[in-house]
């Protein structure tokens, strides 16, 4: 998938410079040859050669196809006429070449794309608290869509132009870098030091491993979640710095089994997680300086401000949940409440918790 050589948008700068360089080198060679040609013709067919500056002028008006008056003394000799014709033809050819290259460059969208890329770089540079998604394959595509649907800022890093185009059809203002995600510079460009989270969804576990290590070194506070293909690599990915590891095939199997063993709960959880308009399960964390920190649930009384149900809570550092927490359950700053409710009710609850 990612291994196959693909046309890269990021590479277009190099060929362009080379494209313009070729006619330029040609121009210099022809110009120099022309100047010396006229000089030598003057030397052999007239007793005195024309001055070099006159020769430069003559070649200049010929190559530019201006067709101004000849000023050289050799213009009436046979050699002079033949040479002038040859130079004139070169001039037309050169002009056509330059015009076609520049036209192709503009028409090919390369110029607009360069401008677009710079604009995108600037927009990425302004991002804060965004999410970086590396890899735009099947899993990565769904990841980007879901993050965007949930209203988050996303930067996609993907080498394959086709995959980026596929996403751009649905998300036209998607921010992306068409480059290799395991490159430090690329991650820096994606704003990894200002991001809150990174999803490593590359098709190959080795690539994911490398990316997780790199990302962890560059931003120790970042939440890193990695995809894994082979189940046995899950532990390695965790040990190397991933906060969570997801194996799509494994949870796919789990869901398939659920569909047969217990279809209602399976469907229910499915809707719960990505239902955009109705009620969904969300979390609300009590912030550092909230007045709620340290109070019991009865004192906070979320039900008074928002129509949500607290189904579980987890205190910072604890690896277990308190289910169906009672009113006398106390909280601290950083306590995560698992809520069920409509999105706007959850927003209200979050607001109340941060007061």
């Amino acid at each position, binding site marked *: 998938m990612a291994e196959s050589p693909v046309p890269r948008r990021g590479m277009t700068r190099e060929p362009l410079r080379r494209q313009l360089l070729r006619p330029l080198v040609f121009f210099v060679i022809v110009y120099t040859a022309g100047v010396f040609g006229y000089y030598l013709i003057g030397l052999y067919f007239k007793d005195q050669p024309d001055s070099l500056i006159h020769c430069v002028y003559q070649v200049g008006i010929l190559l530019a196809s201006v067709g101004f008056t000849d000023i050289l003394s050799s213009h009436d000799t046979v050699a002079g006429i033949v040479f002038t014709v040859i130079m004139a033809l070169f001039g037309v050819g050169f002009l056509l070449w330059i015009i076609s290259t520049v036209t192709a460059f503009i028409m090919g969208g390369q110029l607009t794309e360069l401008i677009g890329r710079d604009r995108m770089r600037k927009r990425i540079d302004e991002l804060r608290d965004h999410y970086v998604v590396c890899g735009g394959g099947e899993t990565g595509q769904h990841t980007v869509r*879901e993050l965007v649907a949930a209203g988050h800022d996303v930067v996609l890093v993907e080498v394959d132009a086709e995959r980026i185009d596929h996403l751009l059809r649905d998300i036209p203002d998607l921010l992306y870098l068409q480059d290799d995600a395991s490159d430090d510079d690329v991650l820096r460009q994606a704003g990894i030091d200002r991001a809150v989270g990174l999803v490593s969804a590359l098709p190959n576990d080795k690539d994911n491993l490398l990316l997780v290590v790199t990302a962890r070194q560059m931003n120790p506070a970042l939440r890193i979640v990695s995809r894994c293909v082979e*189940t046995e690599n899950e532990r390695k990915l965790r040990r190397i710095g991933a906060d969570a590891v997801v194996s799509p095939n*494994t949870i*796919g199997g789990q869901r398939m089994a659920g569909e047969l063993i217990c279809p209602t709960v399976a469907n229910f959880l499915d809707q719960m997680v990505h239902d955009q308009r109705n009620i969904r399960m969300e979390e609300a964390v009590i912030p550092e300086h909230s007045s709620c920190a340290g109070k019991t649930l009865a004192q906070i009384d979320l039900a008074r401000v928002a129509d949500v149900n607290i189904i579980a809570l987890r205190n910072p550092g604890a690896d277990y949940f308190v289910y169906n927490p009672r009113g006398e359950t106390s909280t601290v700053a950083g306590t995560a409440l698992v809520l069920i409710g409509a999105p706007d009710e959850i927003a209200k609850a979050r607001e109340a918790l941060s007061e």
Partner: protein
Amino acid sequence: MTGHAPRQPSQHAHRAEEPGEMSSATDSEALAGLKDHVIVCGTGPTAQRIIAELEAFRTGAGMRRTSGAIPPREYVVVARMREDIDRLRRRYPHMHVLIGDPTEDEILAQAGVQRAYGVFAALADERDNLFITFTARHENPDVRIVARTTDVYGTEPKLKAAGANAVISPSFIGGLRLVSETVRPSVAAFLDEMLRGRDTDLGLVEVCVQRTSALAGRTLRELSLPARHGLHVVALHTRAATEYAYNPGPEARVQAGDTLVLFGARASIDRLAAEAGPAPQEEADG
């Protein structure tokens, strides 16, 4: 019950307890004797997880999310190559194995698709899964088919049209899970615990209300599940509605055929399940 399935030289069916040692007659008999069983097509990572879940469900160790509604089931794994199944067989000695191509009608028939309760089409290639779905639906109109797909947009309608009851795209739910793990880690961990339910006595379970049940026809207020059983009603799935009613109010009335999604201690759920009435499968069997 023990009619012999026609046996072909390249296909061996046997109980994995003694690999390669069972006589062919016993193998075919074992498969021919299966009824209301589950057929798993495939041996990849997705199928492996399905087998693990089925095994846990069978032994009652893991995902017991439907209290009493569906009895533990035997399952047969259809593998193309004997090598694919060797490692799995060592881990799950109970499972039945059939070597052969599951896209062939003959193999599915041998796996007992006509008498099966469910079929998992979990091969890597979704065209194969489409084929299996189509064949299985043709052979058995009542079987529950769950198919794997790689691209939820392209193939899901085709698989549904071919007869799949549910279509799962690992990359789609994988993507969703990656987002949940990144954006709302507590919810992800919570749901994970709910689904696995290993370390805890609590869980998210569905209870189907039967016709004969004492629960049918009463409102949630009358049932007072939180007070009587310590159970939280997370959702109510009524027969008429396709969507779930989340956090149903006290006036919501439970009808026969409705499904309650409950959250609470498993012991309480078992007690309630007894009130909800026996599962239709058991009625049919008895």
